[in-house]
């Protein structure tokens, strides 16, 4: 693989993802409205009923809005990854995925480029949300906005790799709608995005254990800690390990010799 070729392909994939995203205004708007609805309505309601003790990385009592914003930022990445995954299933059904997969580059590289492009396109929306959240007095240190960047990229890549894996085993968009319901909501709710672990433990140890083992919780905590200029090495390692595992599994899923697609065909 020649470097110049690889870079040009990456730029081309990034440009295509950007153009498509910008032209799907409804998707753009809902991507930013969704977390704001959670913040403005859900968090406001919970603020009065949910007391939070001092929970790291916070050094004092915080408003529920402050607690929930990193989780909502991770939720944006999760929804974006799943939307991107849905787009891949759509592309495969509509045929344009074939164009990508018949490019003269290693398939793992093409998949990685597609995943990276999706993350790059999604990040400005997350930053826009973090800035708007200041209106609700969610004001992390200014440097936190810079520090959280690699955490957002890493979390976005892990969720993107997960979406890629889901798309590699989902053969039809109808199936994919079910996958969305069975993946997104359990992943999001059984995590530390909305409540700290100790709160979940009060509801039951099983739920707390699920949340503790849920890689999405690690993504949330990684974002939460770095946004407040702290580093959580365990979360970072879990996210990195999951990224590698999900991506390798997705590469196998799209492998021309071993992938499910090659076994199912359906072309006639």
């Amino acid at each position, binding site marked *: *693989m020649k470097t110049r070729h690889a870079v040009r392909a990456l730029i081309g994939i990034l440009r*295509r993802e950007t153009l498509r995203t910008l032209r799907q205004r409804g998707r753009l708007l809902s991507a930013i409205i969704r977390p704001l609805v959670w913040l403005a309505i859900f968090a406001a309601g919970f603020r009065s009923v949910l007391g939070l003790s001092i929970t790291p990385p916070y050094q004092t009592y915080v408003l529920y809005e402050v607690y929930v914003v990193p989780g909502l930022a991770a939720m944006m990445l999760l929804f974006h990854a799943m939307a991107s995954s849905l787009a891949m299933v759509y592309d495969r059904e509509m045929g*344009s995925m074939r164009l990508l997969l018949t490019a003269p*580059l290693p398939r793992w590289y093409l998949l990685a480029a597609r995943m990276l492009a999706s993350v790059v396109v999604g990040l400005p929306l997350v930053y826009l949300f973090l800035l708007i959240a200041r209106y609700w007095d969610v004001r992390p240190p200014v440097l936190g906005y810079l520090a959280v960047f690699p955490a957002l990229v890493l979390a976005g890549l892990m969720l993107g790799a997960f979406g890629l894996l889901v798309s590699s085993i989902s053969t039809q968009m109808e199936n994919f709608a079910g996958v969305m319901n069975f993946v997104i909501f359990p992943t999001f709710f059984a995590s530390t995005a909305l409540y700290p672990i100790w709160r979940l433990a009060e509801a039951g140890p099983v739920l707390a254990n699920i949340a503790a083992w849920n890689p999405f919780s690690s993504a949330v905590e990684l974002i939460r800690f770095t946004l407040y200029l702290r580093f959580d090495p365990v979360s970072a390692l879990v996210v990195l390990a999951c990224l590698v595992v999900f991506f390798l599994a997705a590469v196998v899923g799209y492998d021309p010799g071993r992938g499910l697609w*090659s076994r199912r065909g359906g072309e*006639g």
Partner: protein
Amino acid sequence: MKALSLEGVGHSFGQRRVLDAISFSVAEGAMCILLGRNGAGKTTLFSLATGLYHARSGQIDVFGHSMRTDPAAALAQMGVVFQQQTLDFDLTAAENLRYHASLHGLGASISEARLREELGRLEVLDRRDEPVRSLSGGQRRRVEIARALMHRPRILLLDEPTTGLDVPGRRAIEQHVRALCRERGVAVLWATHFLEEVSADDDLVVLHQGRVRWAGGARHVATSLAVDGLADAFDLLTETA
């Protein structure tokens, strides 16, 4: 040198055998028609020939490059127009071509020059900045062919490219591709179920129920089978056993 060579290619989806012991080749600069009824296995054959997935058995080479062991070199020689339209409807014709050019490692200036040349050759240059969604079926097909030619492939694979088009549209596409073959020496593998798209000078491969029933010059098929014409020959070759 053979532009495309298939030797003993077989494939199955689960227990269902869809291709069995397929062997034929396309010579450099030749026009080869892959003729078969719906469900004969043409599209699966295209998926294997373009490396979308690997054949369970057999060998596929493109200009001597194995699709299994050296797919990047094989795909660099190949332009593909799939049966399903693979244009991005949210992008313009030009943006679709630029995307393809980037996947093949072309720089911006070469990409722009070829974009004009290929869209011009296929008479859709005036629609370059319109979203693909607004183009007619025939125009979209032309854009797809122009896109497949952006990286100067030495072989062009087209899977039923005229399906869904009216008769003038089909003729125009066929003429464009034949001109490419004649003037640029591009080898062509054209899959179809329309008998009228076969010319006497073409090489012909008849595929039926996943097997090659005939491979040779189109002008010889009728005499070899002692029937009146191509239509009768095709009926004879594709009689269900």
